[in-house]
């Protein structure tokens, strides 16, 4: 059952598949050539965020346009299942991007290094935070309204980011003092991401349960 719902989300975005598949292969390489040494993490992170968001957004757009969720909710599919399918879709997108990046890194005639556990964990954590916020907001306010919210959030980022970074820099002392090896920290990030994902999922399920379709 869940498989079909996830598949449906991918089918809704099917006209972007080719573009995004190429993007997943080319973007990391492109960003990496601009950044050169040490650019592996940002190139993977930025391209994954870009691709996952575009896929997620085009599926949501189609969902909003055709309002098929109302029909699905009238079948034995529960609202909970529909929400879970959305999260699975995002997780599949992460995994696909990771695979494609690894593939690129292995076959591209470039100095593109494979991601280590620490970087992978960090990327998953940040992506999870982003989507962990985006998905419940979309369920709460609907596609149209949440687009404005996201737009506003992106708009204020340049103003807020510096202070956030500063805050992080100030606290980074304690961060590196954690008596854990980098790979262990990577695993910790993944664990944290899972917790955030689960919390976000529970919120989304609650929010969607009482929405009028």
């Amino acid at each position, binding site marked *: *059952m869940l498989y079909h*719902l996830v598949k449906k989300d991918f089918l809704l975005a099917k006209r972007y598949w080719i573009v995004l598949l190429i993007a997943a292969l080319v973007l990391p390489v492109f960003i990496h050539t601009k950044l050169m040494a040490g650019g592996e993490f940002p190139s993977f992170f930025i391209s994954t965020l870009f691709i996952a968001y575009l896929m997620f957004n085009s599926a949501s757009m189609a969902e909003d346009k055709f309002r098929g969720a109302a029909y699905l909710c*009238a*079948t*034995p599919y529960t609202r909970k299942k529909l929400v879970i399918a959305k999260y699975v879709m995002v997780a599949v997108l992460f995994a696909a991007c990771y695979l494609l990046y690894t593939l690129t890194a292995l076959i591209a005639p470039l100095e593109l290094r494979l991601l280590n556990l620490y970087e992978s964990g960090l990327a998953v954590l940040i992506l999870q935070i982003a989507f962990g916020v985006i998905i419940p907001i979309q369920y709460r306010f609907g596609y149209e309204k949440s687009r404005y919210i996201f737009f506003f959030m992106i708009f204020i980022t340049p103003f807020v980011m510096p202070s956030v970074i500063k805050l992080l820099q100030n606290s980074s002392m304690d961060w590196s003092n954690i008596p854990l090896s980098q790979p262990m920290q990577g695993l910790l990030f993944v664990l944290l991401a899972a917790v955030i994902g689960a919390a976000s999922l529970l919120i989304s399920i609650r929010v969607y349960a*009482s929405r009028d379709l």
Partner: protein
Amino acid sequence: MKPILEVNELTKQLGSFKLDNVSFSLTEGCITGFIGVNGAGKTTTIKLLLGLIQKDAGEIKFFGKSIQNNEHEFKNRIGIVLDDGYFYDDLTLLEMKNVIAASYSNWDNRLFKRNIDRFGLPLNQRIGTLSKGMRMKYAIALAISHHADLLIMDEPTSGLDPQVRLELMDILLEYVGEGKSVFLSSHITSDLDKVADMLILIHGGRIIFSEEKDLLLDKHGLVKGDNKELNEQSKALFLTLDETDYGFSGLTADKAAVRRQMKNVYIERPSIEDIMLSYIKR
């Protein structure tokens, strides 16, 4: 014949519209027409039945069991056709079917194939390319391929040409022939004249009547005659009355009383639409 679905005091406030204490029941093996003008509360009631919007109060029972605690079983045993379909137009008929079919535990793919062949539907085409009539047939094919006990349809005939509407009515008659039940809303009552067994009229969020179609037609009469037949007492027998210099015509809910009290009048059989409008106009 037992009740298959019972709705008790269903209430929902939606903006300025209120669905007010709606109660009715559907009889097994029957086609029940849910009639009313646009905005009367038909779609709201159906959405409440399907749990697409949350009710403020009330209870819905399916085969005697509250659907609140048996939602999955209820949805598994009903077929649904929503106004306009609510389909993902970008998917092909086959892709959409695969999503829907997976949700029903007793989906019968051979039955679906038979229906598809019968309606001449192109499985590999995008849903968005279907004509209005084909879209409806596709919706029905999806709704009747899992041996549902009850088919719930919201405005299935709106926007369809008369020939397709006729075909649809035949499909419904065939469906109930197997002992299944149908609940369909419509503001086009001429379709229901032919096929409905029961009629429920809703207006302004309230149920006006819920009655067997034939009894309704037996009781009501379209009366025409000379104005001198009208007096205070006889006027009270009419739901609507239209007086001109040449005579009067009016609709009564008590044909027998008119026959007793007014001797020289013509009584014709009204249509469902005449009856519906006479209650709404009041």
